[in-house]
């Protein structure tokens, strides 16, 4: 009996060590090497690279797009999650599956699809073009790309919370005479607050690292429409590995802090729900 218990604990600690070891090797070590490159020429060079106006511009644009994409998806994604979990309608399963499509297709394809739709060849692009509205190669184009790529995160995070909370609260509100929008605004929305926060953090950090769609739709103009990841790529290609690593470290650190914050803000009740 005690022997088998020993075996159990041995297996458990071996699995534990293996999992942590692999996590270290596959995930943490590559990030650590980045750090080594970033400060290879000294912290002064690292700081210098961060202060470069093109780098600052790229980081600012990245933060703005990520914020905007998060805001847009907070509204659309939450509504979508609400529809998918609270209503039964024909085609619901298909739409539910389609929600995850942005995760499955290469982001470069996303960018190309947007170019086709909003370009002079697409009906939408022609319609806008006749009114002198040019969405691609500017902030709105970039935002469209990021909203597309990060779309699933909010829907799934809010959806998970909605699935787990009983409808009795909503039903009670209805019984008391609340209108549908009141039920949504005063009962459902506060209940899924945690889901929205989780979705927002995930959306924001995914948006920080977006590359494939951005390079197609942004125009990649230095200091104007070049985001952080595009800046990193171009620095790397010009041979300025320190510059690339410095910005990369900053973005990785930002993502880490955001995700850590997410862990901290999730209250125990919410964690149970998710």
């Amino acid at each position, binding site marked *: 009996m005690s022997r088998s218990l020993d075996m159990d604990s041995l297996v458990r600690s071996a699995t534990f060590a293996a999992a942590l070891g692999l996590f270290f090797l596959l995930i943490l070590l590559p990030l650590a090497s980045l750090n080594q490159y970033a400060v290879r020429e000294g912290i002064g060079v690292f700081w210098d690279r961060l202060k470069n106006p093109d780098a600052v511009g790229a980081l600012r644009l990245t933060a703005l797009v990520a914020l905007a994409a998060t805001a847009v998806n907070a509204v659309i994604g939450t509504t979508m999650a609400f529809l998918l979990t609270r209503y039964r309608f024909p085609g619901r399963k298909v739409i539910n599956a389609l929600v995850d499509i942005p995760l499955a297709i290469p982001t470069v394809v996303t960018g190309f699809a947007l170019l086709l739709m909003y370009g002079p060849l697409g009906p939408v692009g022609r319609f806008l073009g006749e009114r002198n509205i040019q969405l691609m190669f500017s902030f709105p184009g970039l935002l469209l790309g990021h909203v597309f790529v990060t779309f699933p995160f909010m829907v799934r995070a809010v959806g998970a919370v909605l699935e787990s909370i009983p409808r009795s609260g909503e039903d009670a509100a209805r019984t008391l005479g609340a209108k549908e929008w009141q039920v949504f605004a005063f009962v459902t929305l506060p209940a899924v607050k945690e889901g929205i926060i989780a979705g927002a953090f995930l959306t924001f950090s995914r948006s920080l690292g977006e590359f494939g769609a951005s390079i197609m739709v942004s125009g*990649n*103009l230095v200091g104007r429409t070049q985001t952080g990841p595009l800046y990193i790529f171009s620095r790397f290609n010009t041979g300025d*590995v320190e510059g690339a690593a410095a910005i990369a470290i900053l973005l990785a650190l930002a993502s880490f802090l955001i995700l850590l914050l997410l862990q901290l803000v999730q209250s125990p009740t919410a964690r149970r729900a998710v």
Partner: protein
Amino acid sequence: MKRLLVLAAVTLLAIPAAHAETIRINIASCCVTEDATTKEILPAFKKYFKEKFGKDVDVSASFAGSGTLKNQILGGAPVQVAVLSSELYLDQLKEKGLITSDWRKYPHKGAVIKSVIVFITRTGNPKGLATFEDLARPGMKVLHSSPDTSGGAQWAIFAIYGAGANFRNLTFGPEDGGVKLLSAVEKNVIAQPESARQTFVQFDAGFGDAIVTYENEALLEKSKGRDYSISVPRKTIETEWKVGRIDRNIRPEQEHAVNELIKFLYAAEAQRAYAKYGFRPVDKKVGKEFQAKYAKVADPFTVDDLGGWKSARKHVIESAWKKTQAR
């Protein structure tokens, strides 16, 4: 029976021996040369090497933008021969000790192929774009790839600058005709994607009046049945791809094959293959054969007219072009 056994044993021994005879080398080549290299040049080289020296050679090739290739080689990619779009990359490999030989001693100072910078326009060139000054007209929409990631874009920017510059008086200041023309054209640039290929994707989606790119890319896209027009400016730059021997990666048994491959790139057979895919051959005789394929440039110039690669990169791209990007 005994003889049969001996024969079998000999055969068995011979098989690995024959395998060991195969020399393996790797070439890294600027992505625009991919079709010419894999479809024509490498198979022809293998055949040539086998016939002439009775040995098998196996050449693997990798293709990417020249800057990426250079970074991969710096990072330890086991490449013995590199064909790159900028001499600066070869210089950097030399500085880091990967190249110890002198590529300038090869024919044409290391250049194996040439091209020129042209415009691709919509069919029939509806906006009548014939010179770089035309690209500067208000309202024109121009595409070229990013000079940070694409060798072709660096040439494109040199071409624009050079078209407006006075070669006897390159000041690179705001009064320099080249800088003036460059800033005027850059105002009309709507996107600078990563590579020349991506500019075509955006052009195909309907964006832009013109792409500024290599003539060989333009010819290649046209040969695929794309419906564009090519406009060759009167005054434009001659571009070149140079070959370097990555000496530090060469083992003694590879050296012969490496030298033969470099020689072969200059041979008529390889030059013809490059020409077939739209490059301008450096070999004069092959050049004559393909004369009809290329438009004559009235007033061609080279990067040497701009003070050489090092100076041109520093003054035209890192200074003048960079300033045009700030708005």
